């Protein structure tokens, strides 16, 4: 099979953003300040999109979108910049009451994505029981195992973690081909494949587009995390995870991250940051940070 005739899914950042609508639930891959699809996030920042629900192992993707007024609700277990533990714009959003929160245990978020990926209404999990996650998410229900638990005729009570269905998923990987097969070359896949499986529309950005036959030159077959069944669009965005890490292509830009964090110190600081780095297109951004 030569693969001739397979869909060419190459898109631009603007074309991806054009597929998104106000009010959508959007899952964003990566973890904390690691391998975030920042070029796509910057595309949303430049757009007219608002009222978004963002599902994320949260990092600066969440903070930037909140600061730019794009977010109605965040679904997460944390928002952190890793080397800076508290995400400053998420903090401001919460403390000013400008953003709603669905606060979940990290494992519950995993389970919710897995349920959606498997088209199950929920998956049982022990996490959450006894904690205030149940209080702040009053729609969460528990379920009792239909199977006896040892001596106990009543099965164990568990949280029925509902599926977290996504309208769209945005992920960033190191390499991809034009058909949507995508590869991570760092040590951790995070949950990028699950975000894609849980979503209606799936968009993969990558550091570099390569011919399919070159993928295995970069890493073992196990590094092919996303296959073309799981992707609707592919965008080549070199340095597109900046300022988060995208090892082995590059590490986190700690100096720039500190500058970003400082932008939460006052409205003026944010406007300056925004003017310099966000009110420009992606090539303009890359030039400004180079």
């Amino acid at each position, binding site marked *: 099979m030569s693969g001739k005739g397979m869909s060419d899914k190459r898109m631009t950042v603007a074309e991806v953003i054009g597929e998104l609508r106000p009010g959508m639930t959007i899952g964003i891959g990566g*973890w904390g300040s690691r391998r975030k699809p920042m070029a796509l996030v910057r595309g949303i920042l430049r757009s007219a999109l608002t009222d978004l629900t963002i599902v994320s*192992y*949260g990092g600066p993707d969440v903070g930037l979108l909140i600061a730019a007024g794009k977010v109605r609700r965040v679904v*997460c*277990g*944390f*928002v*952190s910049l890793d080397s800076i*533990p*508290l995400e400053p714009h*998420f*903090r401001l959003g*919460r*403390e*000013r*009451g400008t953003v709603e929160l669905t*606060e*979940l*245990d*990290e*494992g*519950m978020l*995993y389970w919710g994505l897995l349920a959606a990926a498997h088209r199950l209404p929920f998956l049982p*999990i*022990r*996490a*959450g*029981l*006894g*904690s*205030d*996650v149940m*209080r*702040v998410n009053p729609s969460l229900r528990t379920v009792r195992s239909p199977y006896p638990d040892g001596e106990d005729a009543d099965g*164990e*009570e568990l949280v029925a973690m509902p599926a977290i269905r996504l309208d769209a998923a945005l992920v960033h990987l190191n390499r991809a081909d034009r058909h949507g097969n995508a590869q991570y070359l760092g*040590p*951790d*896949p*995070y*949950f990028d494949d699950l975000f894609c499986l849980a979503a209606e529309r799936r968009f993969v950005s990558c550091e570099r587009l390569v011919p399919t036959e070159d993928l295995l030159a970069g890493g073992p077959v196990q590094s092919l995390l996303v296959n073309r069944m799981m992707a609707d669009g592919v965008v080549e965005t070199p340095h597109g995870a900046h300022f988060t890490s995208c090892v082995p292509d590059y590490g986190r830009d700690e100096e720039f991250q500190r500058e970003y964090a400082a932008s939460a110190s006052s409205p003026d600081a944010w406007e300056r940051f925004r003017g310099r780095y966000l009110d420009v297109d992606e090539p303009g951004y890359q030039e400004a940070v180079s």
Partner: protein
Amino acid sequence: MTGQLLTREVTRAEVCVVACAEAWRGDGEILASPMGVIPRLGAQLARLTFAPDLLLSDGEAYLLDGDAVEGWLPYRSVFGVVASGRRHVMMGASQLDRHGNQNISCIGDWQRPARQLLGVRGAPGNTANHPTSYWVPRHSPRVFTGQVDMVCGVGYDRAAGLAYHEIRRVVTNLAVLDFETPERTMRLRSVHPGVRVAEVVAATGFALAIPGEVPETREPSGPELALIRERLDPGGARDGEVP
């Protein structure tokens, strides 16, 4: 081994490292997940001495045997280990109550907090699945409070349905605490050398269970001190966490 390094007086931070290490004693071949400088040194010390079967990660995706990578543990696999129960985590706590309920999410009303902190992270799942300990580098009534604002890690009074719930230890800069009372409320297990029981009581915002005789937290042995000072933390990062 340099004599000068070892004759220096034992510091409070070093006592804390050993107290953290002791939390993992007897755990066998499980994942030790320390959060913070001193818990990490404690887990490493335990592994090098009395708990050689412990597994340690680099906090990213690798299991490390010294400098050698002995396994792969990306984030998603950690949740599998959590659910399997083969893990003992030592987390931080912005607030802790006498039942062991822990908060790292936010201070004030959750709807609109006075101060947003980390979020619940994995605390609900940790406490529902495997032993959990806490590390508090500054023991104060702000941390040890009557009621936490958001229950992240589950305490004993809310753990009735949780078969795998255990809060092993709370280690602070002043003392070691546990829940080994009939009511499963917080008990003073030992005070660090040089700390009076009254100091711990004054720094705790609720009534602790206090045995008739409170032992002193043990000091590091000579070999332990050598490991801490010369191998694990020659740069003295521990002193930054507990001066």
